[in-house]
């Protein structure tokens, strides 16, 4: 239908003038910018050679110069529709509809053009996939990788012993971890209000000095996103498979919902309910690894308030339950978190403070026969993230498509426990770079 309409328009111009004459140069147009035939020929030639910008500019000029000529306007409208410029199409249609010269026949042609485009767009949107690949490198420095206690002592069978002598191994405190990661995200727009995402990731973590802990992690997730009025719903499922060197391997599966309720322009509530199961692999080296299997029930409720369009404050209440085969490893965890974030010229600054209280179900008798473990943890972090050219404008040439991101994070984890073994202070500094590659999937 659309093709037929376009053909009619082109035939009109063909019959009314010498449309397909010799190649017209831009210089000729500069000399004769208002010549109807010459400029129409030029618009068509530019359209044929794919230079739509000049076609549009020429038709707009002719439309200004010959406002009574509806065929020029229809020709321009057909190009604008194909250009997917909704603002211009709306304006053009409104102008044409209000034009007293627009006949009923012309209105039908306009309606035909628009309805065909809508159909084509719907068909296209239905099947549209998009994808991007994130390649990340990060470097973390930690001042207490082995978790040496604040008192430098460990409780063992009710006795406090110096920490390094517990298993006669070298205890590394300061260390570096290098992470190389790749994550592929595939997304599909199902309709105007819903979409789904698939994510596949592979991380490789190398620790500099500490013997245990190097790992490769394979991860995957699937999530669905649905807008229902002012409610954004997002159920998700994930599966992770870490492969640790010289440590038990495990796999984790999790399912949950992470929804956001928009209250008004300034505030929203984000809430999450989740369940995760971690299963460890038993083998000859780790014959009782599965005793550490755990189920975690997690939930939080977060209120976000936009102070300005660049500053956001957030407050979160957290309630979790962890269950394992061992009662002394099962615990309730509750607490709160506050978040401050601000968009600055060089990136987004975030300050986060999370306080958690962990109350364990039973005593770990080979450590203490009288004390049931209770922890209080305070995790404080300051992070800055953004485009690399925000911190170094000289890198603008390297990051023309704004696809290279940096992140810088300072974190302190301060756990106070009534069992010395868990009374640990850790400080982390992380610097990361991510390159995002957009992949076109149709």
């Amino acid at each position, binding site marked *: 239908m659309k093709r037929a309409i376009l053909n009619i328009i082109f035939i009109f111009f063909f019959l009314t003038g010498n449309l397909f004459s010799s190649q017209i140069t831009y210089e000729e147009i500069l000399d004769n*910018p208002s010549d109807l035939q010459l400029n129409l020929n030029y618009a068509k030639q530019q359209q044929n050679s794919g230079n739509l910008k000049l076609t549009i500019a020429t038709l*707009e000029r002719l439309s200004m110069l010959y406002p009574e000529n509806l065929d020029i306007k229809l020709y321009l409208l057909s190009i604008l529709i194909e250009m997917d*410029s*909704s603002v211009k199409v709306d304006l053009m249609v409104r102008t044409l509809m209000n034009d007293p010269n627009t006949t009923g026949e012309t209105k039908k042609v306009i309606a035909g053009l628009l309805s065909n485009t809508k159909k084509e767009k719907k068909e296209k949107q239905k099947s549209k996939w998009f994808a991007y690949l994130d390649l990340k490198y990060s470097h973390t420095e930690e001042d207490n990788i082995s978790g040496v206690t604040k008192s430098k002592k460990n409780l063992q069978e009710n006795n406090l012993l110096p920490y390094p002598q517990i298993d006669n191994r070298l205890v590394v405190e300061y260390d570096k971890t290098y992470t190389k990661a790749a994550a592929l995200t595939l997304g599909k727009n199902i309709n105007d209000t819903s979409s789904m995402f698939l994510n596949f990731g592979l991380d490789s973590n190398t620790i500099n000095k500490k013997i245990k802990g190097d790992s490769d992690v394979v991860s995957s997730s699937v999530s669905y996103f649905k807008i229902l009025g002012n409610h954004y719903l997002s159920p998700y499922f994930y599966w992770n498979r870490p492969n640790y060197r010289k440590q038990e391997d495990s796999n984790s599966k999790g399912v949950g919902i992470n929804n956001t309720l928009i209250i008004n322009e300034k505030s929203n509530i984000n809430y999450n309910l989740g369940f995760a199961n971690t299963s460890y692999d038993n083998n000859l080296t780790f014959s009782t690894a599965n005793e550490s299997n755990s189920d975690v029930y997690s939930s939080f409720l977060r209120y976000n308030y936009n102070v300005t369009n660049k500053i956001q404050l957030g407050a979160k209440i957290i309630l979790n339950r962890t269950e394992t085969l061992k009662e002394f490893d099962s615990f309730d965890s509750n607490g709160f978190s506050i978040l401050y974030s601000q968009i600055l010229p060089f990136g987004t600054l975030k300050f986060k403070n999370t306080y958690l209280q962990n109350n364990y179900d039973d005593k770990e008798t080979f450590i203490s026969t009288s004390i049931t473990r209770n922890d209080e943890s305070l995790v404080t972090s300051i992070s800055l993230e953004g485009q690399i050219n925000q911190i170094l404008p000289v890198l603008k040439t390297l990051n023309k498509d704004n696809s290279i991101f940096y992140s810088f994070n300072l974190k302190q984890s301060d756990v106070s426990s009534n069992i010395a073994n868990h009374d640990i202070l850790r400080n982390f500094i992380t610097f990361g770079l991510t390159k995002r590659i957009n992949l076109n999937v149709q």
Partner: protein
Amino acid sequence: MYSKKIIILLILILLPNLANANTSKFIGVVGAAIGEIKNQNDESLVNGSKIFFGDTIISKEKSNAQILFLDQTVLTLGEDTELTIDEFIYDPKSHEGSFISNVKSGTVKFITGQISKQNPDNLEVKVPSGVLGARGTEFIVLSENENKSTVVLLGPGPENTLGMIPGNLILSDGINSINITNPGYEAMVTN
């Protein structure tokens, strides 16, 4: 003594030429002039009038105009608009150059040309509330007053069937930058 005189003489000879080089350089034409279109000397501009480096183009009430530049950049002025071309350097062979325009008031639609195609950073739009580094196929700049300017991306959209690269407008006020990828979306620069 002689050398001083020679230098003064050279300056006297070169000065008018340098001034001429800047002010009389032909950079484009008025493609369409509807209503009352003037330049900085209050001369009327009509279809086909030449535009020179440093010219100010003023469209009065109920008037509009389209200006075609040598690098194929096309500007359309709405009514009550004042636009100055602060810089226009263009090499037709390499298509490289620099284009700085100043939208003092009113509405100007930009269809970018070869200068922006070669290096989008070389197209700069000054507005009363700041400077915009704008890259995009087609966009509108509205200078509402000294404190507020708005930029709207027009297209092409991501669903275009013409094989065109979707429009992407990156605006910068010198400190912050924002990326607009959806036609119809706008950004404001305020003082």
